[in-house]
């Protein structure tokens, strides 16, 4: 199965809302061996000027990889997940992610490049926070939170 070159330029709109919970921030922080009190103690986070617990710098990967799943699971993409290798990753934070945020991600396929029998695919997730009570598709009440870019190498047969 080969990667569909027409993927380049494709976008997947914001789908389900991701609710950022305190326990999820704590769980993720422990999982990356983070110990900073701002991930665990609300008072410590507030002392630094944040409204609630602050997510670690790579927390947005949870939301970004959910968005990526739309592409990987798209039957038209031709991507075999078991042959995927993560090649590079970037997080640009427009403002910190904090507990209580309701996030949505728009996925953009910025690049598809054939490499051997496989392909390098670059995706970008634009992550927004919704205003309280807003629906996922109400573009006028969302605030840019983070931009993540990711390149995955889908290995061809024999690679």
């Amino acid at each position, binding site marked *: 199965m080969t990667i569909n070159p027409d993927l380049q330029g494709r976008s997947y709109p914001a789908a389900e809302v991701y609710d950022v919970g305190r326990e999820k921030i704590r*769980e993720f922080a422990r999982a990356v061996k983070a110990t900073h009190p*701002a991930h665990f103690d609300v008072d410590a986070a507030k002392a630094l000027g944040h409204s609630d617990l602050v997510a670690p*710098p*790579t927390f947005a990967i949870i939301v970004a990889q959910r968005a990526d799943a739309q592409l990987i699971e798209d039957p038209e993409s031709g991507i075999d997940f078991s042959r995927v290798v993560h090649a590079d990753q970037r997080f640009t934070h427009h403002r910190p992610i904090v507990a209580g945020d309701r996030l949505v991600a728009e996925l953009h396929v910025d690049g598809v490049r054939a490499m051997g029998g496989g392909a390098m695919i670059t995706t970008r997730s634009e992550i927004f926070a919704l205003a309280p009570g807003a629906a996922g598709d109400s573009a006028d009440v969302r605030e840019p939170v983070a931009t993540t870019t990711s390149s995955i190498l889908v290995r061809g047969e024999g690679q």
Partner: protein
Amino acid sequence: MSITIAELTVGQDIGSRSIAVTRTDLVKYAGASGDFNPIHWNEAFATGVGLPGVIAHGMFTMGAAVQLVTDWAGDPAAVVDFQTRFTKPVPVADTTGTPEAGAVIEVSGAIGALDADAGTARVDLTVVSAGQKVLVKAQAVVRLA
């Protein structure tokens, strides 16, 4: 504590740390992140797709490595940009039931660039496991006071 840009120089060391990794850590990261690719927890599957064995999630290594920067900066929110390339996998041996680490990741950081106008410092991380650089161009941009 708060670091000011005036007290920093390019090339300055911000410290180092050693991160012990076990198979249990990979299972915890899988659960916390939602990345359940079996190459990170199933030996037979990993070797079946041509890997040397179970390997750490690249995102585990990236996420653990940046803690050096977070703790140095004093506020996790100060890390406004963070990027890396994943160059080598980190195989994690099965040491279940023993106190041994399955892999050790060594992280060190130095100031790579200063931008006085933006009020930011770029920290360049060197991330090594088993003598090989596992992350390349691992750069965190930190907003300073």
